[in-house]
């Protein structure tokens, strides 16, 4: 039995995953987290620091880290990279003026060594807004097709209505599970 198998078995026993949720400020990261956890989303303040939620989903224990996206907090993102299984990148689909910022921040993240093994889920959030860009447009603006280093997937969602949140997280879980857990 190789070391990898042993490690995978250990992980399997825990059935635990660490997800890191990042994105520019006002993207809706905390709202996604709270909505997914079934909490009230109408009283959310801009995140000064971070939120952690541990929740059970499909038999997995998910540790979701939601770190504030303000410019002054972005330099602290790196403190949360260690042992991340999945990266959730949240985009405000209605904020066209900062799409370029958003693309640059994401591409900087993807060069991080400590995130090298992580699966990437991009949430094109705020699809409920009439002026929001479609997920195809976000995919193009973020140049996702150029990403060769990570497994990725983009899903259009709305944190306010909850639309497609589950679908996105399910994809992420499946991809991570296929990678780190042995199938036996």
């Amino acid at each position, binding site marked *: 039995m190789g070391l990898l198998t042993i490690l995978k078995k250990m992980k399997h026993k825990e059935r635990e995953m660490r997800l890191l949720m990042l994105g520019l400020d006002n993207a809706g990261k905390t709202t996604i987290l709270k909505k997914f956890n079934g909490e009230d989303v109408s009283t959310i303040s*801009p995140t000064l620091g971070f939120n952690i939620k541990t929740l059970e989903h499909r038999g997995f224990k998910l540790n979701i880290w939601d770190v504030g996206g303000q410019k002054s907090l972005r330099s602290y993102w790196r403190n949360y990279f260690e042992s991340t299984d999945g990266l959730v990148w949240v985009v405000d689909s209605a904020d066209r003026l900062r799409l370029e910022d958003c693309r640059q921040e994401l591409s900087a993240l993807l060069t991080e060594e400590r995130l090298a093994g992580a699966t990437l889920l991009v949430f094109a959030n705020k699809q409920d807004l009439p002026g929001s860009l*479609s997920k195809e447009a976000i995919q193009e603006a973020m140049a996702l097709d150029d990403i060769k280093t990570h497994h990725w997937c983009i899903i259009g969602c709305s944190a306010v209505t909850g639309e497609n949140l589950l679908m996105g997280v399910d994809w992420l879980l499946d991809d991570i599970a296929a990678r780190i857990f042995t199938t036996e």
Partner: protein
Amino acid sequence: MSLAMETSPSQGNGDEKPSETVKIPDRLLKRDQARLEEAERRKDIKEGRSVTEEKSDFFSTTFNTERATIDELLSICTEANRENATKILEEATVKTQQLQKFLNDSMMFLTPYELRQAQATLQVLLSTISEKRDDILPKKKFAFKSRNVKSKPAESPSTSITELPKSASNRDTDADAAVTPVQCVFSNVDSQVLIKRADEIQQQDVLLTHLTNCKVRLLGSPSTLHIKHVRDCEIMSGPVSSSVFVDQCTGSTLAFPCQQLRTHNTKDTQIYLHVTSRAIIEDCQGVSFAPLTWTYSNMDADFAVSGLDKNRNNWDQVDDFNWLAFDTPSPNWTVIPVSDRKTSWDDLVPASSE
């Protein structure tokens, strides 16, 4: 047992009296009886507890019935009845989610094989639903190339007293050139009065950029509001359902109710605010806050539309992301003293020419 009775005296447990050794089998008997009763009791409890929901045939029957229902829903959902399609898809999605929940709840007593099968089935259902959705309700394809298309949405909202200058909608050679207008955009305007009413902005995402020396009134409830590159303006808006995002704003006065306010790179600006969660500032200087004093005739109704709580206003709880010390207040923002607060605003609304 009787053997034990006979042999026990001869075994010579010297100090034990014979009468006691005779009692041992009795005790054993009793214990055995008790053990049997206990076992019986446990069995009863166990049977009582095993509810029908935890049998795996129950699971597979229910799962398959539900799945058949969803399949049927999806099969009647064709391009022909487009108006119903949305509703049916919605129903199918909800049912699928319920099915996923049911599976999650049942996981404890399913074999790994059944679990895998059920999950695979659910995946198929989900992807079928999303395919159907893409087929029947295709989203508008967005492309950056179609520049000439965009002049239409930019001009259509300008039915109010101020016509956007013709040049404005075509002037997009600046830094934000790669950006096409959102549903409601007002940009590149100098020294004008802009009044927008509910029919144009109600629950829309509104963007105000590159305004100088303008007076803006948004008489309705936008779903979100972006204010960027603004100088010497007076901008008032009705209740904003979600967040207001302010960037690069100088020497202006802003007033609006909103759920969240995020202020960036802003200087010497007064904000008359009603905020139900929090306001934050980042890279700002000389920003001052006061409670909202501006109002307009239909504001209460728009409050209802926005879903904001009129009785909760945290206007003076401002987080400065560049000032993380708890004990000393941030030098970047202040509260406008009561005597200096503006209480009367220019009533621009009835004015028809300016």
